[in-house]
């Protein structure tokens, strides 16, 4: 039996599988289907300082081997998350959870992170500077190394828990942004958020999505994500969470060989809500097949 556990920024995970933010709500929808304690952890729905409805609908478009979303960070706001969502989660998830945070100013990020940092259930802060679906925030921080560093520093100065900066692939050079975050004190880097994409409805001759463009995710982007994880792993010393189109135990192993310490699964949850427990169940067999004894030992093994 292979060893699945990995250490993510000082916290031991039973396995490296983490449902990605925005595809797993605050956990309890999935708890109807399976015991979510089997997960390494999960990253909860992107939370902002104030409540948000998000973008108009349609927010979803299907693509070949993937989908586009333009939800626009719908969430009840950090106060409501702490008062309502986290207590509900406590009933079905006993492990430390990853708090995903988004914002529209450096102060927003710092405020929301400080509030969530104080919650006992929160193990890590995953700071989303990469949402392609909101104006005047999100991705604009993740496309400029100076702004990325500024958010990192601001969050680090008000928190005690590991801070993981989540990066967008919609940049010329993701390595520069990753380095800027690591230099500014980030404890980890997670990548990639969705790739900006669009679809047009031939019947209406208009974009399918009300917001016109959205974030493309799913198996189609896996090779791009893997390449970026590999590049960033060569350039920074902090742990990396790899994500982008991961849908199988084999994908997980590739991500880890490219340099990921843990792996997030996103769009695949929406299609097969049991995909994460299936991957966790498959991992020992697939590891055996490829002669892998311990996951921790293969991180960054593909040179």
């Amino acid at each position: 039996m292979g060893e699945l556990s990995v250490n993510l920024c000082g916290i031991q995970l039973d396995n490296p599988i983490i449902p990605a933010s925005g595809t797993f709500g605050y956990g309890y929808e999935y708890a109807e289907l399976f015991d979510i304690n089997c997960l390494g952890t999960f990253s909860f729905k992107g939370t902002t300082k104030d409540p948000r409805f998000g973008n108009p609908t349609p927010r979803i478009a299907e693509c070949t081997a993937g989908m586009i979303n333009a939800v626009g960070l719908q969430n009840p706001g950090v106060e409501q998350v702490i008062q309502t969502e986290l207590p509900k989660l406590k009933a079905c998830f006993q492990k430390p959870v990853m708090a995903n945070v988004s914002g529209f100013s450096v102060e927003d990020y710092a405020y929301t992170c400080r509030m969530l940092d104080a919650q006992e259930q929160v193990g890590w802060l995953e700071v989303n500077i990469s949402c392609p679906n909101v104006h005047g925030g999100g991705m604009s921080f993740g496309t400029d190394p100076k702004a990325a560093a500024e958010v990192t520093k601001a969050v680090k100065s008000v928190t005690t828990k590991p801070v993981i900066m989540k990066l967008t692939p919609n940049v010329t050079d993701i390595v520069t942004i990753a380095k800027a975050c690591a230099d500014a004190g980030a404890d980890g880097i997670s990548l990639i958020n969705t790739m900006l994409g669009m679809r047009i409805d031939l019947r209406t001759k208009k974009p399918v999505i009300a917001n016109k463009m959205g974030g493309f995710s799913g198996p189609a982007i896996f090779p791009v994500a893997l390449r970026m994880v590999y590049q960033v792993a060569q350039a920074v010393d902090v742990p990396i969470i790899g994500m982008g189109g991961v849908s199988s135990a084999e994908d997980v192993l590739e991500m880890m060989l490219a340099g990921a310490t843990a792996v997030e699964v996103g769009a695949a949850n929406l299609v097969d809500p049991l995909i994460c427990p299936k991957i966790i169940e498959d991992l020992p067999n697939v590891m055996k097949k490829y002669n892998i004894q311990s996951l921790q030992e293969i991180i960054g093994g593909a040179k």
Partner: protein
Amino acid sequence: MKQGIFEIVENLPLTENVYKMTLRGDTSAITAPGQFVNIKLDGLYLRRPISVCDLQGDFLTIIYKVVGKGTAQLSEMRTGTLDLLTGLGNGYDLAKSGASPVLLGGGVGVPPMYLLCKTLLAQGKSVQVILGFNTKNEVFFEQEFKDLGANVTVTTVDGTYGLKGFVTDALAGCDYSYFYTCGPEPMLKAVYRASRTSGQLSFEKRMGCGFGACMGCSCKTVTGYKRICKEGPVLQKEEILWES
């Protein structure tokens, strides 16, 4: 919600592009008329949400119109199995029906009315059904509703069958205690405006997951933000905020 593998028992056309499929599997998660299932199809990334038309033990009936790649693929399946998520959505609340509810279905909004009608009749209600279609060769399920014992009126927009006009034209002459409806949004809006009682309306929206995780199908209501797939697809008349 449950995930299960269903065997295709039958898949037959009712009209030129509307099909009725009977499936066999674990239906235990389906708890109310008006809920839907989400179907995985080979080669397509997202599942296809389709409302439940009828339920008899292990047998589940769905009726769908061929509108795109997914439904076209579904219409060609004769045998085999399908991966379904079942028990999705809130479904209709039957407790509010009163003694003589009216059910209005338009086009592929007709199927969910069937299980609802059957269930209300079993509770001893006097059920009136209004089925709206564009034209004669699109009409389906009139006899099936009559066989249940409901009082059925069919309307067609072009007058080639039944009463000429919209479901609301037939509604004008009805006495009813409550209404239930499903159909295209312009029809829902017309029923909302024409109805003289409270009621429930079932909405359709482009979905990602179908079980409340992705927030792809959210809408604003008087009682806050709702996910059509989770707190919907059925909304109370009083809580609806029309987008346009």
